[in-house]
């Protein structure tokens, strides 16, 4: 039986932190990206606010690129002539709008050891706030299930799929969690729990004022003129790449790289403090880095 790939519910912060890809071997074998919490994602379902949308292709060969925001960050989507239904739907949408997307995962590796993830939509639909709220709640529940599975696995000396299934986790998730634990060093569950708490508060009017201050900032700029989509991605992410490398290099004690040292380091490659702030904000948005304590940046 070849079942259809399930559409995972994953927040942007978790999705964008994925650095492990499992490529299907042989014809038609599906590929997956494995998130730090063990979601083995081939297909996603997400609902968010479409904030940016540009056709960087031509009228005949459209290529739509867009950004969809959820309470934790942004999803990057791109849709061209090979996704006729999604592309036709996107061409009729004027941001901002609540949009639901069913799509496939996509990865981009500008160089060995780095990987960026985006989404290639299959179906796109304008929806209403209540569908978005429902998605946020469902995604909170799904994320908590994954946190629980990772926590269970961390208790085991050598976590196995069978042991996790015995504890009541689904075989698919158990497989992803075992793979994730082998690849990601020390996943910070506290951070993901805090993320779920914030997302739940986002749904409740009594916490609204508290949340607004924490909403992900709209910082990353996309270049206006781009030749093709890979160049577009590369231009924006080249700087981010360099900063990421620097942060990794300066994080000697594992407590994060000191901000002042990062500033000094990027100066040498001709980046000023404002530009650096833009880059780190974008990295924070994507969930690639976080600030364990004030004044320190750490890779996730």
């Amino acid at each position: 039986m070849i079942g259809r790939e399930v559409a995972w519910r994953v927040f942007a912060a978790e999705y964008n932190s994925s650095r492990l890809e499992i490529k299907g071997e042989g014809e038609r074998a599906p590929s997956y990206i494995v998130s730090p919490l063990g979601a083995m994602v081939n297909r996603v379902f997400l609902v968010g606010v479409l904030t940016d949308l540009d056709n960087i292709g031509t009228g005949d060969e459209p290529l739509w690129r867009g950004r969809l925001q959820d309470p934790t960050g942004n999803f990057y989507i791109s849709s061209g002539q090979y996704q006729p239904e999604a592309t036709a739907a996107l061409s009729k949408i004027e941001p901002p709008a609540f949009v639901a997307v069913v799509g496939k995962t996509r990865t981009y590796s500008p160089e060995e050891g780095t990987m960026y993830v985006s989404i290639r939509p299959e179906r796109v639909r304008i929806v209403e706030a209540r569908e978005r709220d429902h998605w946020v709640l469902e995604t909170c529940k799904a994320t908590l299930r994954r946190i629980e599975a990772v926590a269970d696995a961390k208790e085991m000396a050598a976590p196995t799929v069978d042991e996790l299934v015995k504890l009541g986790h689904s075989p698919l998730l158990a497989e992803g969690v075992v793979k994730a634990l082998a690849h990601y060093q020390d996943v910070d569950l506290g951070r993901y729990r805090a993320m779920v708490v914030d997302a739940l508060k986002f749904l409740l009017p009594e916490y609204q004022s508290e949340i607004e201050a924490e909403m992900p900032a709209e910082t990353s700029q996309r270049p206006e003129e781009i030749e093709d989509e890979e160049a577009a991605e590369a231009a924006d992410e080249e700087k981010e790449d360099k900063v990421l490398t620097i942060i990794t290099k300066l994080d000697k004690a594992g407590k994060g790289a000191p901000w002042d040292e990062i500033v000094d380091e990027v100066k040498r490659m001709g980046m000023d403090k404002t530009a650096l702030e833009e880059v780190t904000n974008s990295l924070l948005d994507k969930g690639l880095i976080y600030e364990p304590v004030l004044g320190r940046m750490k890779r996730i």
Partner: protein
Amino acid sequence: MEKQELAPHVAEISRVLGNKVSEEQIAKELDTYLNLYRVSLETAKRSVVRKLGGDPNALSKGVQKKLSELAGAEQSVDLLVKVLSANRKDIEQNGEVKTLIYGLMADESGSMAYTAWDADRFQLERGQVLLVRNAYTKEWNGKPQLNLGTRATIETQPQDAVKLPEGMDVPIYGPTTAKVSDLQEGMNSVTITVKVLQVETRKIETQEGPKTVYSGTVADETGRVQFSSWHDFNLIKDEVVQIRGGYVRSWRGIPQLNFGERADVQRVKGHFPADVDLSKPRPRSIGELEMVGGAYDVVVAGVVVDVKKGSGLIQRCPQCNRLVQNKLCRLHGKVEGQYDLRIKAVVDDGAGAITAVLNKEITEALVGITLEQAIKDAREAMDPEVVKEKVEERLLAKPIEVRGNVISDDYGLMMIVSEARMFVPEVRGEAANLLSELEGSQ
């Protein structure tokens, strides 16, 4: 060992001895070694051959190999394997209907598809550990495939003789106490406590004359399941019984509970289960259903993530009811199709996906369109796709709850929907509860 099981070994010894000794004599000798002296089959065969003047080395040319070592043209090979799946299939060969078994076998090195060409001789069951002798391989679709033909023999081995890599093994069902939602194809010796919702008798003709089958529906708080019994346990509607020694077989993925005269049925006193209305189907996770392969009368809730081709306004053949495409029926050629409405929607709950098939009545109610209106719309637009677009407008990316029987085929799970409704989820209350749980635990 029974005579029938011995037959292939007798034939092999006879071959080694150049057909000079009668099979009757060989069978008698072999029987003595096996059933009187109780030596292993291999020793018995070698001894018989030696005793009757043959060369024991001529026995079973097969070399024991691992599955990963097999090429596409092995003539004769022995394997120590576990049966991961065993499916029966009827084929027609030279005008005769014959049953074969196909599925997957595995050892430490990997797994391989197999076909056993005689279901009577190889009574393969899922989970068996076997020493297979004299199997051969053939290449199919670029991969070697294992075949158990006329020369092959099987011997059951202890379960721990084959240790499979993690994740590949099949669950072995010993005597289990189960709930209805746990029931899964291949389970034996099941103990289960259920309430009888419905029971009826049917007379059927068998080779041994007419027999009565007792069948119906039973339920517990996890769900409902259809049962059948060849023995009269005098089951009465609404009573609660504990069944010991039931077994599960499935039809197109829907598990069915069976129990025969060897089963034990006891009446259970008291309310059961007090707080659940058993007359209603139980909600299930789609991921769970993917694991068991199907279910009888359940409810699932999820989001419509796709509306498949062949949804909306379709045409059916007036003779066979099959889908008519480009005015052609697959069976009856050019026909005047009759209009119908239906939806094939993919419902996904984040744990699994299922194709829900909705008939005309349910489609009309859900989408708010009649068949007549749909025909009119399609004619006006000169394109039947406008009806599918209307279906998508109403369903896509929205939460839906569907009820029905879940079956499985090559493409995954499918539900024949008996009831469907779009629902507006209650978000805030659940979010607040979840939040206080989380903050309470911190």
